[in-house]
């Protein structure tokens, strides 16, 4: 067996987040949110921020590692890494980079973070582009020149056709997407951090909600929020000295399928969230099977992305989606496949996957607001439908 693995080499020992806000409602600028989340994660780990010697992030996070290091007076910055690619596809990849740096002796204590005050910058829901409102229409070139003139601009509009094709190929019904949305809202009702706590969602409300772009209704789409979240990683050797039980990284994988980024939707394997290659390597490193996974946090940019992610991680065959994706099956604590137990991006906060990693850790610790009994293996899937994507698996002490 090759020793080139991250399995049980590194653990998450602290997690933290700011208060989560609706889009545009954070009283703090984005950089201050990042600092507050890092402080919260350090407090959770019981360390001083001065012990941090590395930062990892993704999605072109605007809050530079070197600015953070200067602002916090970090004595020696040893690691700073950024996963290429937009969207949240890099969330688990950033954890992998941090873990690899620790396992490889490049750093001791690395923080993975994401700060995202969408209200202070360009909104993703408008395609993340500056359109020059009120002035002459700008010229657009490159990849975006192919879809945008036809009104396929926003992420929802760029991904709906993949999901439509998948649903048609495999006979997946709208009710499968609805169950994913209902599960997130159901779990949010018990989570004090969740922005949609106190606003439960039922089938009739989902069915009556307006189309954004078929097959996505309003409740199939993530929120747009302000906030920040962070986690602290150290080596497995050090991890036992912390107050929380270690949440070990069992495996992580990132990447893209063959020519998945070929422009104008020409990827040979089209109706996919892009986890075909990534999921295989994730399971190989973690040495677990889908049936070993106790709880899944699957990034909801759109419910359709979750549908494809879960199928590509082997939790059901595409043809079984209608039976697998029911509110009963997806609900904690007793469902067969408890999903997005914090409320996720639909109903807790759209923190680009970092809140989903934190929820995975809390399930290992036994601290979730929708706790499942005896969680030893927790999976987090990042940023479906974008390129590259990533996912990770955490394990309790019992997996050693």
């Amino acid at each position: 067996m090759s020793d080139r693995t991250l399995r049980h080499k590194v653990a998450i020992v602290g997690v933290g987040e700011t208060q989560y806000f609706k889009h545009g409602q954070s009283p703090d600028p984005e950089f201050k949110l990042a600092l507050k989340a890092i402080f919260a994660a350090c407090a959770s780990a019981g360390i001083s921020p001065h012990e941090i010697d590395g930062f990892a992030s993704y999605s072109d996070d605007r809050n530079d590692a070197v600015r953070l290091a200067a602002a916090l007076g970090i004595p020696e910055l040893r690691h700073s890494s950024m996963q290429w690619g937009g969207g949240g596809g890099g969330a688990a990849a950033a954890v992998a980079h941090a873990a690899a740096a620790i396992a490889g002796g490049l750093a001791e204590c690395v923080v993975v973070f994401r700060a995202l005050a969408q209200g202070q910058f360009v909104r993703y829901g408008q395609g993340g582009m500056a359109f020059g409102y009120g002035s002459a229409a700008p010229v657009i070139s490159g990849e975006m020149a192919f879809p945008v003139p036809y009104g396929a601009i926003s992420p929802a509009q760029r991904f709906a056709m993949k999901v439509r094709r998948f649903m048609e190929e495999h006979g997946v019904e709208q009710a499968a997407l609805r169950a994913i949305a209902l599960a997130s809202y159901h779990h949010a009702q018990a989570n004090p951090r969740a922005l949609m706590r106190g606003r439960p969602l039922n089938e009739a409300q989902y069915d009556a909600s307006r189309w954004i772009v078929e097959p996505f209704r309003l409740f199939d789409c993530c929120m747009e929020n302000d906030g920040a979240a962070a986690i602290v990683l150290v080596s497995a050797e050090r991890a036992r000295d912390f107050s929380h039980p270690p949440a070990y990284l069992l495996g992580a994988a990132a990447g893209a399928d063959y020519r998945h980024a070929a422009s104008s939707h020409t990827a040979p394997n089209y109706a996919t969230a892009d986890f075909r290659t990534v999921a295989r390597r994730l399971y190989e490193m973690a040495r677990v099977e889908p049936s070993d996974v106790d709880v899944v946090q699957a990034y909801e940019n759109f419910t359709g992305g979750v549908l494809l992610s879960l199928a590509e991680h082997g939790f059901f065959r595409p043809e079984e989606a209608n039976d697998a994706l029911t509110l009963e099956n997806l609900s904690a604590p007793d469902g067969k496949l408890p999903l997005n137990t914090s409320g996720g991006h639909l109903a807790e906060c759209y923190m680009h996957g970092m809140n989903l990693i934190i929820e995975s850790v809390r399930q290992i610790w036994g601290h979730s607001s929708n706790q499942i009994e005896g969680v030893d293996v927790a999976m987090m899937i990042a940023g479906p439908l974008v390129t590259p994507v990533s996912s990770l698996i955490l394990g309790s002490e019992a997996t050693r």
Partner: protein
Amino acid sequence: MTQHSEPYLPAGLPIPGPERDGLSKPYWEGLKAGRLLIQRCCTCGIWQWGPEWICHSCHGFDLAWEEVKAEGRIYSWERVWHAVHPALKTAVPYLVVLVELREPTTVRLIGNLLGDPRQRVSIGAEVAGEFEHHTESEPPFSLLQWRVP
């Protein structure tokens, strides 16, 4: 191949054009001339889309642009109800289709499906291309739209 006069979507969206390095210029110039041009490797003959400076199969740098027929099948589709650009506020709902060309079948193009935006759309349906020329635009450009015959 036919043309239609009224644009499917209102004016005001970003105007498509070639990159600074000119990679996709033959494609956009071709549409203005009513021709659909797709990249093809001069060395191994494989079709390539989107445009790139190298053949993804044989790694040859010698790539040509060949005219193909604007005919194909609907590979997927979406009906947009929520406008994300001010120019589209009065244009919803509208239909976007992904069309797999009849030849080469490895190429898919995004366009709008002309006709009733509330029409029933079927994956696999045959469609024919129609050039949509925006000659009054500054700079001028052309799009390729699709219709079920």
